[in-house]
């Protein structure tokens, strides 16, 4: 199986349909009798809804129904929940205000859903929406992250006095204070982790389809986790019991976190399909994506690093204000806490760490996970303050990292911030990356560039990620409302084909290929005879979905466990057919054989016997060869690595050109190197976008100024260099595949790498720090204010 098994760069199974335009994305689907939906959204960031008059809209051509927050309340729909309850520093629960699917009392951000119009055509729904008259009492808005918790700021939710959701701490505050007291040097930095908008190229879409025959609903939706959507819409929003709701997430055009969440639109079209007795389709226009997909990051941080005279890290102190936006999205509270504070050990032996996070509401789009989610913010502040410290103390930036790395022999390593790293070799990745980019020869290149009038800089970042979320009991103790296992089912048919049902969801990650490679490798079944099914709660036993680079580590492991059961049952069937003792049967390369003999049955023959059980031990074994496993991981996984890049800056324009990018990552065992390289390259591009050009900008009144691709700058092919990818390997010690995960690391490593390079390029001018995004204007200003 070497050519299609684990470790082979197999061509992607899913690509054939995509390159011929025959994928089936949600908006490509249409249901018989389908009507179309358009949402009336608040034009105000903060306004009391005094009344909503739908009469004129209801009389508009083609209109089938108009629904408001009052209708939602009358039908007793529930609030869209935040699934992660954070316990505050003082022991109290976080302030979690309700989030109703349609706003009835107040609108809390520009784009907040106020009413729904359903009509025969999309344009009729859109036209009629303009006739919905909402009487708003416009209220002062609280938009500024730094000011929203201050006295006198407009209060957004009655349940959250001072607009504070929680104040949370992690680490040993006293020990950290003591570490700073004995420091030789303290490096300090204020930094902004800029708000980004996920911008999957496929806008969100949903079709609610109520079947009047059996009172059941089907929701076709752009989701990264259809089972979780079913759970939330059933158990919390209470539209239908889970047994009466099927959620299908077909081909999905990118997620990057934004399609984890269960949004108001999806709930409302599901509910409305029953109200109008027709399927109801909604597809976001791009402006709606900007105004309603959960945004990411948006932190203000003060960080301090205490060092001894040799540059060893004694203590790290972090104070962060994190924006939640106007409502708590499903996982919002977990991002600046359990996916952020717990990563502040980084890859270093920092002896004492304390982190405090104040999470606040503002009249802006809700903030939640975007590719990396909390971990890019942690890596950014660590790798920036390490560079600042190196600069302050005159220590080479690679050398200061070497002096502080957790040694390769120190695993398992208990961090100061709750996690226990199982494996890693951070020095190996660093040295490989430095060799690849010729770190030693950089000053020559800087000089050569200076001769051409360019400012050249080099930057590096050594990151770590916690992914493969996560042990259910651990996350449960931290306030998670769900378990975070995964389900996998491996089904043979009578002719020896295999169908794999996974609770993971692929929306670019190549599961149809990589999961088939694993199955082919383990079971010795040809790759072509394996189909991977995902994204349908009606076909797959259960699932927690794809986010946080968990699919392979958790979903892949569930499939391995299901295959273990298949092999165990196959062994018993083979023992019967071969008239041997079960203990004497061994399984290898798709064959069950009697040890020391040439007597064997292929797994295909075993499957046939299982489905046509004429010669079969029916008294002790059920027919069929179809096994399901739920896998709950023992720990997170910890990919880590070093990225290095070089930039050249034009003094006259401030334009930053990224000249080279080297990524050396440790992902544990790699199933498909070609797929992994693509994940890294895409992640780096996402991180370069955040560092160089992407930013969500609000004006004082809460209007989103960057609400289109003309205003929100996405990285394009011409903005990026070739991204050189290599790996080092330490295996994950606790999952059966030894895998760690790779989907987010590029976005985690890239912002710090790039800003470190830009600051290095500008350092000769006296620049110490530059905020993201380092647009040409910002860089030009830095050049001119420095000189």
């Amino acid at each position, binding site marked *: 199986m070497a050519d299609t098994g684990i470790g082979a760069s197999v*061509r992607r199974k899913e690509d054939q349909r995509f*390159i011929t335009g025959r994928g089936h994305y949600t908006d490509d689907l249409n249901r018989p009798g389908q009507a179309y939906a358009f949402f009336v959204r608040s034009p105000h960031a903060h306004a009391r809804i005094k009344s909503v008059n739908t009469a004129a809209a209801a009389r508009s051509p083609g209109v089938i129904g108009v629904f408001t927050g009052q209708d939602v309340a009358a039908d007793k729909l529930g609030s869209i929940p935040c699934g992660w309850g954070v316990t505050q520093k003082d022991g109290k629960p976080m302030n979690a205000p309700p989030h109703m699917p349609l706003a009835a009392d107040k609108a809390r951000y520009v784009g907040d859903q106020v009413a729904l119009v359903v009509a025969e055509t999309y344009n009729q729904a859109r036209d009629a929406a303009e006739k919905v008259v909402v009487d708003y009492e416009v209220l002062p808005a609280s938009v500024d992250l730094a000011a929203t918790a201050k006295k006198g700021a407009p209060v957004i939710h009655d349940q959250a006095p001072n607009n504070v959701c929680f104040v949370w701490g992690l680490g040993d505050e006293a020990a950290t204070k003591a570490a700073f007291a004995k420091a030789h040097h303290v490096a300090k930095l204020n930094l902004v982790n800029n708000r980004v908008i996920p911008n999957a190229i496929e806008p969100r879409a949903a079709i609610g389809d109520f079947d009047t025959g059996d009172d059941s609903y089907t929701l076709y939706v752009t989701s990264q986790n259809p089972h979780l959507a079913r759970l939330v819409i059933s158990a919390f929003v209470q539209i239908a019991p889970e047994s009466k709701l099927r959620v299908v997430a077909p081909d999905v055009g990118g997620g990057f976190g934004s399609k984890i969440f269960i949004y108001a639109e999806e709930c409302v079209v599901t509910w409305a399909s029953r109200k109008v007795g027709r399927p109801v389709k909604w597809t976001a226009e791009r402006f709606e994506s900007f105004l309603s997909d959960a945004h990411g990051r948006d932190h203000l941080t003060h960080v301090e690093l205490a060092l001894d005279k040799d540059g060893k890290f004694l203590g790290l102190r972090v104070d962060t204000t994190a924006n939640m936006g106007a409502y708590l999205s499903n996982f919002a509270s977990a991002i600046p806490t359990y996916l952020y504070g717990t990563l502040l050990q980084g890859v270093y032996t920092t002896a004492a760490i304390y982190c405090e996070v104040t999470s606040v509401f503002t009249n802006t789009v809700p903030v939640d996970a975007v590719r990396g989610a909390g971990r890019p913010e942690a890596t950014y502040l660590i790798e920036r303050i390490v560079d600042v410290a190196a600069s302050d103390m005159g220590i080479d930036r690679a050398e200061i990292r070497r002096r502080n790395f957790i040694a390769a022999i120190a695993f398992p390593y208990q961090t100061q911030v709750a996690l226990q790293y199982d494996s890693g070799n951070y020095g190996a990745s660093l040295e490989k990356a430095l060799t690849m980019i010729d770190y030693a020869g950089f000053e020559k290149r800087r000089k050569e560039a200076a001769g051409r009038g360019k400012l050249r800089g080099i930057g590096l970042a050594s990151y770590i990620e916690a992914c493969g979320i996560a042990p259910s009991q651990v996350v449960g103790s931290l306030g998670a409302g769900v378990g975070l296992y995964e389900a996998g089912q491996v089904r043979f048919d009578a002719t020896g084909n295999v169908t794999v049902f996974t609770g993971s969801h692929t929306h670019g990650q190549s599961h149809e290929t990589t999961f088939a490679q694993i199955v082919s490798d383990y079971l010795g079944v040809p790759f072509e005879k394996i189909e991977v099914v995902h994204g349908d709660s009606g076909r797959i036993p259960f699932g927690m979905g794809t986010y946080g680079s968990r699919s392979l580590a958790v979903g892949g492991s569930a499939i391995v466990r299901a295959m273990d059961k298949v092999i165990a049952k196959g062994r018993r069937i083979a023992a019967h057919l071969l008239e041997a003792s079960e203990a004497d049967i061994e399984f290898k390369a798709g064959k069950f054989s009697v040890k020391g003999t040439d007597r064997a049955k292929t797994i295909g023959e075993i499957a046939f016997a299982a489905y046509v059980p004429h010669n079969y031990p029916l008294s002790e074994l059920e027919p069929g060869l179809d096994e399901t496993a739920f896998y709950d991981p023992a720990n997170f996984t910890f990919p880590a690595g070093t990225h290095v890049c070089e930039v050249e800056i034009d003094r006259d324009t401030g334009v930053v050109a990224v000249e080279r990018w080297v990524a050396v990552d440790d992902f544990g065992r790699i199933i498909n190197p070609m797929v992994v390289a693509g994940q890294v*390259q*895409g992640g780096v591009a996402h991180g370069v976008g955040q560092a160089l050009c992407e930013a969500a900008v609000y004006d004082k009144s809460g209007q989103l100024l960057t609400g289109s*691709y003309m205003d929100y700058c996405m990285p394009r*092919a011409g903005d990026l260099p070739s991204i050189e990818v290599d790996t080092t390997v330490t295996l994950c010690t606790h999952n059966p595949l030894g895998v760690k995960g790779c989907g987010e690391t590029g976005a985690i490593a890239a912002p710090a790498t790039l800003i470190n390079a830009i600051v290095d390029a500008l350092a000769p001018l006296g620049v110490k720090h530059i905020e993201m995004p380092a647009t040409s204007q910002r860089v030009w200003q830095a050049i001119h204010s420095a000189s």
Partner: protein
Amino acid sequence: MSGIAVSTTINGDAVEFLCQAEETLLDVLRDRLGLTGAKEGCGTGDCGACSVIVDGRLVCACLVLGAEAEGSSIETIEGMADGDKLHPLQEKFLEHAALQCGVCTPGFLMAAKDLLTRNPDPTEEEIRFGLAGNLCRCTGYDKIVRAVQDAARVMKGA
């Protein structure tokens, strides 16, 4: 139903359709003709996901009205392969895994085809700028650039 009668050639076949005045060519392709390969990513001509070739010119189908297509010859992703035989660009996108979620891919393939028609031997920089009208959030463009370079090499030799 009433509407504007439009006669076109799509992927080599004569196609007639009725459309409303406000319908875009993208609406017509997707909703009336079942050609859903072209996608609407933005509706404003900024993302290139709806790229098709009209009378030899690469356009965003979201910016062309259906009624404007009268008398035009239109190429879409559905007509790129010759039956089961993939176009060299499609082959190379497969070989290099130059796509992930796939939603921008039809647009990239049409844009790359147009680029190689105009410039059969592009440099990496020319490819990067030639495809800068198309957004991809998944790949970082690296493998797309490699695939187009490789396809150009094969097509020149053909």
